[in-house]
């Protein structure tokens, strides 16, 4: 059974059909790319998958469960976490606390326990700190754990967003243009990190990206979106050599 199965997904804003008849199947452990020209509807699909928008048609199955139309927080609890095209960190919190918010649902204690500082508070906080530091180490952010998130350099902010998403222990990770604004060296490093996350965490990853080097370098399969509809899908090399795709990118 596929981890993610999307069938005939569609949404309209007023009269505009932003996404139409979109289907996608991703197997467990796959690294999958979603590409397409600007305004093709890629981020809209992420927003549909994470419940920011409710689809007008179609359904979404995650690991055998129907999550269509559920709220964002429920979908996260079912196992989808994401990053954002325009970085959305908790800018006033420390790097460590950003990850700890990600651990929120997996290491619970009540508000009263927190206020009264019951023994459970110390125990759970310790677990959270350890787990958060582990995650930060993976992304080479452990040295900056005390920094305010907004003081991190751009590339590290992107990494922190991924670490925070992973903290929710998802089954599927959605990355929205993870390499945007990075220089070639940083992109190289990011590719390594993404592969590492997939292998180390046995993660399934769906990513949106414009950087073709990154896409061809790490994605196993691709779907190309144009004007809200699927233009092509399949193995990465095949898709990238498809004349239709080249035409869409270069413009007819």
């Amino acid at each position, binding site marked *: 059974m596929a981890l993610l199965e999307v069938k005939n997904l569609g949404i309209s804003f007023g009269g505009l059909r932003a996404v139409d008849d979109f289907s996608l199947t991703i197997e467990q452990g796959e690294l999958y790319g979603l590409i397409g020209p600007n305004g093709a509807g890629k*981020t809209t699909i992420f*927003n549909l998958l994470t419940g*920011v928008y409710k689809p007008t048609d179609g359904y979404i199955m995650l690991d055998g469960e129907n999550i269509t139309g559920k709220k964002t927080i429920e979908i996260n609890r079912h196992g989808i976490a994401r990053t*954002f095209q325009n970085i959305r960190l908790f800018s006033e919190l420390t790097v460590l606390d950003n990850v700890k918010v990600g651990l929120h649902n997996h290491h619970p204690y009540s508000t009263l326990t927190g206020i009264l500082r019951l023994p459970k508070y110390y125990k759970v906080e310790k677990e959270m700190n350890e787990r958060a530091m582990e995650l930060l180490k993976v992304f080479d952010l452990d040295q900056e754990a005390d920094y305010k998130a907004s003081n991190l350099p751009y590339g590290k902010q992107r990494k922190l967003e991924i670490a925070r998403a992973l903290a929710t222990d998802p089954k599927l990770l959605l990355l929205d243009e993870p390499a945007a604004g990075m220089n070639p060296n940083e992109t190289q490093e990011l590719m390594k990190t993404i592969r590492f996350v997939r292998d180390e965490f046995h993660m399934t990853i769906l990513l949106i990206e414009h950087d073709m080097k990154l896409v061809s370098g790490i994605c196993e399969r691709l779907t190309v979106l144009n004007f809200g509809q699927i233009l092509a899908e399949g193995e990465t090399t095949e898709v990238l050599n498809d004349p239709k795709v080249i035409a869409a990118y270069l413009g007819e």
Partner: protein
Amino acid sequence: MIGFISYLVNGISLGSVYAIIALGYTMVYGIAKMLNFAHGDVIMVGAFVVFSTVSGMGLPPVIGILISVAVCTVLGVVIERVAYKPLRHASKLAVLITAIGVSYFLQNMALLIYGANTKSFTSVVTVPPITLADGALVISGETIVTVIACIIIMIGLMAFMKYSKSGRAMLAVSEDSGAAQLMGVNVNSTIALTFAIGSALAAIAGVLLCSSYPSLTPYTGSMPGIKAFVAAVFGGIGSIPGAFIGGILLGVIEILGRAYISSQLSDAIVFAVLIIVLLVKPTGILGKQIQEKV
């Protein structure tokens, strides 16, 4: 029935004053994107200037009103220049607190000059009242002048925004001040002009308010100022016809509430209506919907 109509007329009269204040509020909010808490106190200053010039120095009312409008216009521009302009890029909260400081400043300045005693304001209106239905319904001259003034001001403002270069510059700044600047609009002078117009309107509102309700203290402007902001939110902040509709509705609700439900609860009723409107339609009656982009 006559009683109801009489209340309605009073409500429209009070509502017209709210509308004039709300027009100033909504323009400043729409263009400078700030909640000018001191706007209500400019009303009070306007009324005191007329009180001093007309009742004190014995000048004719028209001259007194003109002086008052001039003083408030200058005051508005000076407040903007000294207190708000340095904070153009500061947090909303910082600007709000500064506005509160300005409000305290104006109140205490008036307190220092005029003392805390209530002054009785002589109406500047000389229009005779209209008597209808064999004397059962009297519409006062103040009411007639207030309502007419309000309608003229609203139409004038709408025409100004639509047809004059400065008015269109204001629209541009309210949409996107950065882009407006790039297109050659002088944002600073546009905002100053907005404050000038808003404060001039506040002066007129002050005179009309105190002509209908003739007691004047340093705190006279505070509550009408708040209510006018409520009216602006009610009608959809940033919208000129919205401020007008919101003002009139609020005045009518307040007077009818005072007459038929409870005189002590009339303010509570006004605020309750605001809450209901915002919960049903969070952008007010004529406001625009803005959604956050993910």
